[in-house]
């Protein structure tokens, strides 16, 4: 997967143009990771050090190890996410160990949703979620630039209307 971002020349003809996710998403996720696990390590260290014995405070290193591992994992996961708009469908590819690639034809979209929580808004991010008539269609693109999210939403709804096919 380390070389996965390079487009493989498997299919000839209309090669999809892949777009990655903005680096701000990675920063946000890493910040959240550091904040939460940092607090946990601090709390654990203080608790064990004061209540039991100072030597036990070494257990607080565990969350720090977890943090380092999570730091790398988040990076790999972030690199694996990508999407491509083709003439008639949207491709979403994700996952490092458990890879999944989804194709959603525009005509099948019932609803396009743009959501953005308080932390996401602070980092100027928004996620786009596509709903089809099948609940199993899990087509979400997390953490896009709000302008890009809105462009994508408008384009998807426009294309969806043009190619609407119902059920």
């Amino acid at each position: 997967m380390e070389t996965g971002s390079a487009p493989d020349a498997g299919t000839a003809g209309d090669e999809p143009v892949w777009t990655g996710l903005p680096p701000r998403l990675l920063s946000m996720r890493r910040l959240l990771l550091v904040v939460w696990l940092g607090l946990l390590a601090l709390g654990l260290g203080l608790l064990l050090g004061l209540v039991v014995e100072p030597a036990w405070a070494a257990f607080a290193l565990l969350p720090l190890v977890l943090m380092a591992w999570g730091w790398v994992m988040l990076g790999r996961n972030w690199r694996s996410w990508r999407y491509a708009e083709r003439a008639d469908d949207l491709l979403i590819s994700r996952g490092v160990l458990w890879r999944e690639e989804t194709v959603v034809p525009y005509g099948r979209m019932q609803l396009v949703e743009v959501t953005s929580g308080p932390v996401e808004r602070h980092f100027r991010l928004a996620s786009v979620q596509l709903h089809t008539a099948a609940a199993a269609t899990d087509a979400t693109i997390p953490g896009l630039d709000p302008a890009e999210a809105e462009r994508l939403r408008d384009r998807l709804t426009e294309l969806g209307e043009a190619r609407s096919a119902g059920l």
Partner: protein
Amino acid sequence: MTAPGVEDGVLEQRPLTERRLHPVTPLRRAWAPVAVLIGWAVHDPDQAQRQLTRLTTTTLLIALAVLVPAAALYGFLTWWFTHFAVTDTELRIRTGLLFRRTAHIRLERIQAVDVTQPLLARVAGVAKLKLDVIGVDKKDELAFLGEDEARALRAELLARAAGFAPETAHEVGEAPSRELLRVPPRVLVVSLVLTGATWGTLAAALVVPPVLWLATDSVWTVLATGVPLLGAAGASSVGRFVGEYDWTVGESPDGLRIDHGLLDRTHETVPPGRVQTVRIVEPLLWRRRGWVRVELDVAGSSNSVLVPVAPRAVAESVVARVLPGVTVPPPSALSRPPRRAGRCRPVWWRGYGLAVSDSVFAARHGLLRRSLSLVPHAKVQSVRVAQGPWERLWRVADVKVDTGANKTVTARLRDAQEAAELLRAQAERSRTGRRDARPDRWMAP
């Protein structure tokens, strides 16, 4: 979905005639307080017993004198406040005594219409009309209507949903139906005898309670396990026989007609183009006789059996009617996963198979109880390829096809290269397949 505003304007010209349900309906509601009492007694038997001994005859009579009229009044009021009306595009149901509820059901979105008659309703000559609509958890039903009225209403709803002109929708009447298949009771019995689940639940019901009795000597434990087990055994043998008795599949311009039931009669109608997936199930013991069971998925509908048991050739001809232009791929046409898939799922990989034709995506799974799922390309909502780390080691991947009935059909452990090509090709096929799919209003010019 496209232009609701236009039709709304037309509606205003014709005065709405609101109708009420059949006057028998209040009797159905009258059971509610009695059911609550019984529920309380079962929930807390000791308390109920103590309360009962304290009661004298007079208090009982007074309670009855209060409860029965109250129940009757409640039943009458709910009946009085329930109205329905059929407009050009919608069925409107207005109901609710304290909390008003108005449901407007768009006719072209109807997935199936069922007319059911429970045993008591058959005696009273009334029927229930049930509508399957996508995205509605609670089924909207009209209970009860007069038997003839229910049939007439079903015919009218289907005619309007099909796109007949509003003036003629009344006169179109019941579309003629042609019988495709009828399951003889003998075949149904033999098929149930040859079903493993029937014997499994029966054996469990006969073995588990005595064992528990020997182990614990407690009547309550035995009863608590024995009664549900016996219930399950009964439901899977007698219950299925009663439910699937005299199963008839017919074809009419309105769509598929499915009639069945010994005590409770059910008449289902599935309009054309509503079927999302069809499954052909072949239990181990049926294989020698060449029998299959056919199940189908319709969006927003819970009923799933199309044919409980039939010879393969007959079942395939019915499937060809349900999914026009689709031929069921023979077992020889299914391609197996590559040999190395055995490293991912040792024995079961032999049961997997896949065939893709111009009209349908067919995936099989199951070794003993084979099940072949068919999805017309026009019904595919999205396509996915999923691959775990162990599967990547052996260069295989799963291809998943999502349909509108919330069912996902999976072709497991395909060669990774093949899966990637399948993903691209399937997206293309489902796009072109939709182009010549039938419109929602199947009779509209």
